């Protein structure tokens, strides 16, 4: 069970030396109890106290890190059931599944398409995290060959899928020095799989059809010396998966129930149809999966899923923002037009991308609107004529252009009157409402 702040305090040196960055040991103890700091921040804890405290300072959902060749995928360390309570931290990793009964060429083609996939969303480069290789032939050599084929075209972390310890052992030999995820241990093979996990320092998935079974196996494996576990509650439909993932997260967070305090893996790939797979993956993102295994890689599905993952894992307290300032797009000259927008990332990039792809040069003035969209900021009084005028002055926009003319977003056309008062020597133009229409507007009217 978790220790209270006072219980933790009793185990600390009680010298109030402040080395941890907190004024008192008690203050540090309270933070530790709330799982907001790491025990390692106090350099003075005695070893025996450490052992007792380790438990309390451990996150309720264990952090599992898969690594390979400088790539890393993390899952776990979550502290809330609902993102508004704080935030979700570690985005679930997306893994594309290939099988050892595919030809090496087929594997390489599938893997390299997904491996090289990258899509830009609000200035972030989003991509797939790794690959899952499944042994369907039951042949160690075939499994090993499939992994080798993957490794010829991708360096990302792997999930190795086989319940046969012999086959798994062969696969693990291909990925020496990496931390893959093994899938997995069930009631019949857990010891042999546990041995392999220990030997290779790999994380191990625990598979059971019930929470009782999962908790049982996870406990045995932990006692056996395998600390890094991942849970597969074996639900493959939306409803059952939602129920089980919720129960696991609740037990871990509310009851600090250690046997289920691990990330969950989801297999949307087992869906019969592509559209079901995409919906299951969306559900897995929102509802508590740490690893998501997909079969059908297609940009038109990967892109929305990656975006959904960004959205759900955005910190609700901090909108994603860009730095206010004057941005140069397509090498503007003093004759190029000035456009104004807000510093909410989504807003900035929807405008910047349109202008950029049109090939037309422009000065994009990004006003400080506290990270809000055009209308939100306008409604909140953070994007008004006064603020825009302030930005025009702060960033010396007048010195950059010959013609003092500024285009405001169509959604805030109402601002044009006040803008004329705030910037008397400027011509105020109302642009289109949506950024998509900007290139045409710039060609025709500027």
């Amino acid at each position, binding site marked *: 069970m978790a220790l209270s702040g006072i219980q933790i305090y009793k185990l600390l040196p009680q010298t109030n030396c402040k080395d941890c960055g907190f004024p008192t040991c008690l203050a540090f103890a309270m933070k530790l109890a709330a799982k907001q700091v790491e025990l390692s921040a106090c350099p003075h804890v005695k070893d025996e106290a450490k052992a007792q405290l380790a438990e309390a300072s451990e996150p309720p959902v264990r952090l599992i890190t898969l690594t390979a060749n400088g790539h890393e995928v993390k899952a776990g360390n979550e502290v809330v059931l609902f993102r508004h309570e704080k935030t979700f931290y570690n985005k679930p990793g997306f893994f594309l599944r290939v099988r050892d009964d595919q030809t090496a060429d087929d594997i390489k083609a599938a893997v390299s398409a997904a491996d090289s996939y990258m899509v830009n969303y609000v200035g972030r480069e989003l991509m797939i995290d790794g690959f899952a290789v499944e042994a369907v032939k039951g042949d160690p050599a075939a499994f090993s060959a499939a992994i080798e084929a993957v490794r010829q075209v991708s360096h990302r972390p792997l999930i190795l899928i086989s319940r046969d310890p012999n086959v798994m052992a062969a696969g693990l030999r291909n990925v020496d020095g990496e931390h893959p995820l093994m899938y997995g241990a069930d009631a019949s093979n857990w010891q042999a799989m546990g041995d392999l996990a220990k030997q290779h320092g790999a994380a191990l998935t625990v598979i059971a059809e019930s929470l009782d079974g999962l908790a049982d196996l996870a406990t045995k494996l932990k006692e056996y010396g395998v600390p890094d576990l991942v849970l597969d509650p074996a639900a493959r439909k939306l409803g059952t998966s939602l129920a089980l993932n919720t129960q696991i997260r609740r037990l871990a967070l509310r009851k600090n129930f250690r046997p289920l305090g691990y990330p969950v893996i989801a297999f949307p790939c087992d869906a019969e149809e592509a559209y079901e797979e995409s919906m299951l993956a969306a559900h897995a993102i*929102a509802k508590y999966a740490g690893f998501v295994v997909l079969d059908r890689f297609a940009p038109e599905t990967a892109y929305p899923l990656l975006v959904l993952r960004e959205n759900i894992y955005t910190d609700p307290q901090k909108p994603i923002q860009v730095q206010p300032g004057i941005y140069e797009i397509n090498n503007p000259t003093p004759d190029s037009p000035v456009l104004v927008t807000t510093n909410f990332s989504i807003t900035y990039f929807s405008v910047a991308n349109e202008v950029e792809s049109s090939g037309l040069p422009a000065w994009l003035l990004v006003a400080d609107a506290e990270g809000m969209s055009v209308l939100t900021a306008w409604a909140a009084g953070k994007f008004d004529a006064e603020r825009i005028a302030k930005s025009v002055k702060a960033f010396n926009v007048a010195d950059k252009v010959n013609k003092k003319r500024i285009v405001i977003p169509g959604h805030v056309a109402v601002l044009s009157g006040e803008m004329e008062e705030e910037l008397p020597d400027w011509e105020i133009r109302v642009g289109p409402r949506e950024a998509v229409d900007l290139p045409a507007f710039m060609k025709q009217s500027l």
Partner: protein
Amino acid sequence: MPVEIPKDSWEGTVRTVTLGATSAEGGTRSRTITVGGQKTLPFMNFEQTAPNRPVVAVEIKERRPTDWSPLLLDVWGDAANDPAAWAKQAEAVGADLLVLALTLTDADGAPTTPQAAVAATKAVLGASALPLIVFGPGQAEADNELLLAVAEATKGERLALGICEDKNYRTIVAAALANDHCVTARTPMDVNLAKQLNILIHDMGLPLDRILMDPTTGALGYGIEYGYSVMERLRLAALQGDAMTQLPMLVTPGFEAWKTKESKVGQDVPEAWGDWAERAINWETLTAVALVESGADIVVLRHPESVRRIHKAIDELTISPEMA
């Protein structure tokens, strides 16, 4: 190791709202739709199964829209030229109910008249026996004028009229009150604003079981996270016993998703966006799936394929899991 399943029990219950009236109830609908009634967070069937499942509404217009994605116009084809044909088609692809969203102007650019709005509404009611929601064009004066006429001409059908907002709700609520209709109440993604508007509407005498709340949503990539979280918070508040949040929720992922560049534009977009049609449908369905899981009772969609997919998702979510 026997694990005790952590079950929540809540004080509050979401109210039920019934849309549409059959002939026995003074209307002409073949069936009614009831939403709400949950005593748990969405689909926590191991605690208690919900009496009503979320439903899918399909949005149609009284005339062919000029600003919709070509993908939508293609898939609806000629049906989009005529509200009656469109309504039939929407019913055929599996709509549980319809949303008729009126346009501000007619094809010639003149303001849509109350007569035209009434004619379109009647045409829809005549062509399909599904319950109906009617949205005004979204401008206070036009909304009031058109919805009042529609409300009077359809007395007893138990439509839902929308969209009530804090700046414009009185006329719409009065029209609903006088003609036995319901309303939808929209606020910009804020629990307190939602409560406030529900109170204002209720204070005019409209019973709470005739109000649907629309907490506003954003599409994937364009603010869905705010919509998602405000719905979770509203539903939590409702279950905790906060009466003014205990209303079923309607959201418009179709409108939001089909406004995005990802759905609207097929050319000169990054290659990494992939196939246009499937991307656009994913944009709508993945937005809708996330919202259904966060508590939506009515999702308003635009594409027939999305309707099929979301039905499938709701089917799976409402199945009671066989668990110990």
